[in-house]
């Protein structure tokens, strides 16, 4: 049944030539790498994320790309050499769950642009239309080594809207941060949030009401696809997004905490023949790790947040390790402009908990939770997520082992361009903080 639906949908897609997920049109992704210099980073412990750590390694950056990584690399003549002896080098961090620019600082009511919670289904909104590139959160998070962000809308309704993938560079227009040729995501939410939102007099009022809302929307999207196949129909922004989920062109990011609710969402995906991409938060994922592994669903979660609401009460600090042990595609996310500044520490905390298990987890696996694995989820692992020859030079030089609480990102490169340099602070201050006392007192 599942296969058949998929085939039908694939055929219908070819016939209509519909394109649900082309991020280039009509709000063009016009990200261009900033001007960069060719450099050789030498002497550091290099952590490529896709290979073992290299003691006293070299990373060569040329034309904004990783040109070479290894222990015995010849330094090209005339290239600028950065001596990183006693330091660590990793790929840039990717935050798979960010609301930067959408829920901005300062959080004036007028700046709460992250969730169009006017109806249970707002699949038609695109979060990129809310993003304010001057949110000071972008620069703070950049100082934490985050080079790529998956911006998601908030979770107070069932269908929250589309996500967008941004390179974390200073820019005036969001289009100039938007990475071309990425797969769109749709954010959905189950559990408490849609119910609490509905307390203001609208449905859903219960968890069964949540499921009704999901099912009706997918039934409508199926009918929409059928109509499209038969001829021209007026474009419906809401159904375009949901139809994109059905055809597999749009991946899903589903906010869901409890194991039973994740299982219910899996059943929903079987009913309508789509594949769930990633459950976010998923504090009870450890209870159904095998099911998640069989379904090939990724989990993006925290290391040790729990108890802040009823559906997070059973959160446990061995969650991340349990998923890794079960072979689940595992990611650590922030959902916070504060946590996002230390995703390396979040990963370290989860690794530390794994010491209570009888199965080791390698430092390489741990680094992947915040680099290569989110890159795979976003379909950009051909371009970033590891220190691999030919990929974008999204690189962080750390003062300490990145799994230390004392680690500071001393230099951050995005496509080879230096965007953070601890020796030249505030070089990329947002317009908002420019001229404020905090920027005036910098030592540059």
């Amino acid at each position: 049944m599942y296969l058949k639906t998929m085939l039908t949908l694939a055929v219908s897609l070819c016939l209509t030539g519909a394109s649900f997920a082309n991020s280039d049109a009509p709000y063009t992704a016009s990200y261009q790498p900033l001007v960069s210099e060719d450099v050789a980073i030498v002497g550091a412990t290099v952590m490529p994320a896709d290979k073992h750590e290299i003691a006293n390694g070299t990373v060569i950056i040329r034309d904004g790309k990783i040109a070479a990584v290894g222990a015995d690399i010849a330094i090209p003549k005339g290239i600028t050499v950065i001596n990183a002896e006693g330091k660590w080098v990793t790929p840039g961090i990717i935050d798979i769950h960010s609301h930067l620019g959408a829920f901005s600082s300062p959080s004036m009511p007028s700046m709460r642009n992250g969730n169009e919670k006017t109806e249970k289904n707002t699949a038609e909104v695109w979060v990129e239309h809310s993003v304010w590139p001057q949110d000071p959160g972008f620069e703070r998070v950049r100082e934490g080594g985050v080079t790529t962000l998956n911006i998601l809308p908030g979770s107070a309704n069932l269908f929250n809207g589309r996500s967008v993938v941004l390179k974390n560079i200073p820019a005036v227009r969001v289009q100039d941060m938007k990475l071309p040729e990425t797969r769109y995501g749709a954010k959905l939410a189950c559990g408490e949030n849609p119910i609490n939102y509905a307390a203001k007099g609208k449905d859903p009022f219960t968890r069964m009401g949540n499921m009704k809302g999901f099912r009706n929307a997918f039934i409508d999207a199926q009918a929409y696809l059928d109509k499209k196949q038969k001829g021209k129909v007026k474009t419906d922004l809401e159904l375009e997004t949901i139809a994109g989920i059905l055809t597999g062109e749009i991946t899903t990011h589903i906010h869901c905490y409890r194991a039973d609710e994740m299982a219910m969402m899996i059943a929903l995906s079987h009913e309508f023949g789509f594949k769930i991409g990633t459950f976010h938060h998923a504090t009870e994922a450890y209870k159904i790790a095998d099911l998640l592994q069989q379904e090939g669903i990724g989990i993006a979660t925290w290391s040790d947040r729990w108890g802040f609401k009823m559906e997070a009460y059973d959160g446990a600090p061995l969650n991340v390790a349990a998923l890794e042990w079960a072979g689940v595609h595992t990611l650590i996310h922030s959902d916070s402009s504060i946590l996002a500044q230390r995703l390396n520490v979040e990963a370290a905390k989860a690794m530390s908990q794994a010491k209570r298990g009888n199965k080791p987890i390698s430092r390489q696996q741990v680094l992947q939770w915040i680099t290569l694995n989110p890159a795979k989820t976003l379909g950009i692992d051909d371009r970033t997520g590891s220190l691999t020859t030919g990929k974008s030079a999204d690189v962080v030089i750390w003062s300490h082992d990145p799994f230390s609480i004392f680690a500071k990102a001393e230099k951050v490169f995005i496509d080879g361009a230096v965007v953070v340099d601890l020796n030249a602070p505030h070089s990329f201050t947002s317009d908002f903080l420019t001229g404020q006392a905090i920027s005036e007192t910098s030592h540059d």
Partner: protein
Amino acid sequence: MTKYISALVLIYGLLLQTAQAESLLLKNARIITASDAGTLSKGDVLITDGIVSRVDTSIKASGEVRVIDYSGQVISPGFINPESALGIREINGGANASESASNDKQITAAYNVADIINPYSVAIPVARRGGVTGAIIAPSSSRDSHYAGQAAWFTTEDSASPESVVPAKAIFWDLKAVSSGRGATFPRLRAELQDAIAYANNGDSAGPFKAKNWSRYDLKALAPVMRGEIPMAFRVNRATDITALIKILADTNIKAILVGAAEGWMVASQIAESGIPVVADPTDNLPSNFDMINAANQNILSMHEAGVKVIIGGPTSAHDAGKIRYFAGIAVGNGLPYDEAIKAISAIPAEVFGLARIGQIKQGMRADIAVWDGDPLEPLSQLTALYIQGKPQSLLTRQDLLEQRYINEAVNVYRKTGTKGE
């Protein structure tokens, strides 16, 4: 099901077993004393009747004493969370899961968390796992008043007794609780303090009062603050609010504490001159509102360098109480000297909140001691044992039990009370 019940019975039995304090000699550990003695690279701690009776590079066991070898491990004081909802907020939301603020207009400053701390909260063992042995349990803002209420000192011990809670260690006040506007807030505060001082001096014969129609509950609660017996903790962030408060408090005997002080670095010398200590969150570095547009990474370091006594806070939620060690680590990453960061979550909060005989590993201090397999501020380190008043504490959490139900690889390292793997 029976399996779980018998497991619970077993845990209870083990809890009871450890109720009596024995003499202990903890040997061969790196000892972070948080006292003037600094850090001993290798040393011993002797505990008698729940009190540290000696700290030295080498102590010979004599008489009836249990010797525990902690070679390669690190001993620190039990940490103190200076502002927490531990025991008063199990979960946000309904069903009586949260009791952290007053809804009674007559009882604001007098709101008393001491009577409502739940020692059976499942968040408490999680806090212990973070090496936290003490916390200031502080009420959150009430809806109608700047006065949040009376905070208590809670000891996180596994066998809670009436002595675990010491009431009225401070009264918390919140600038932004009521949106009357600063231009009204500060004149009113000045008048209220004058009224409260008059009541503290003259009791019921004081009055008529100027600021408002006081409830006697609130005036009584504020009296020890006005006499300088317990501190008043002011939740403020903006630089101008800090200086305004310093001015208002100058004519009083009030022992103030600033909580938040995100823009403290801008007026660090004034704070230092006033002698007012600060509880600051090292993760406050974003302009999340216009009271902290200039929140900065260097805040804590700048205040420390100016001579301000800084306590590290931040993880105020009940579930995050044990994360205080990471917050100290973040402050170190931002330049605060390591020893200062340790003191900022042990000796300094103990001194500022008047928590007698805790916060340092020193002769005569209560033996509230954490043992770690590495640097206690590092996420890669884990707690291996915790002592409160010299008694080994249960480190088992509800989370452990859930993990053991579902995760095959979960090894039961904290199954027994006391030291890990014992």
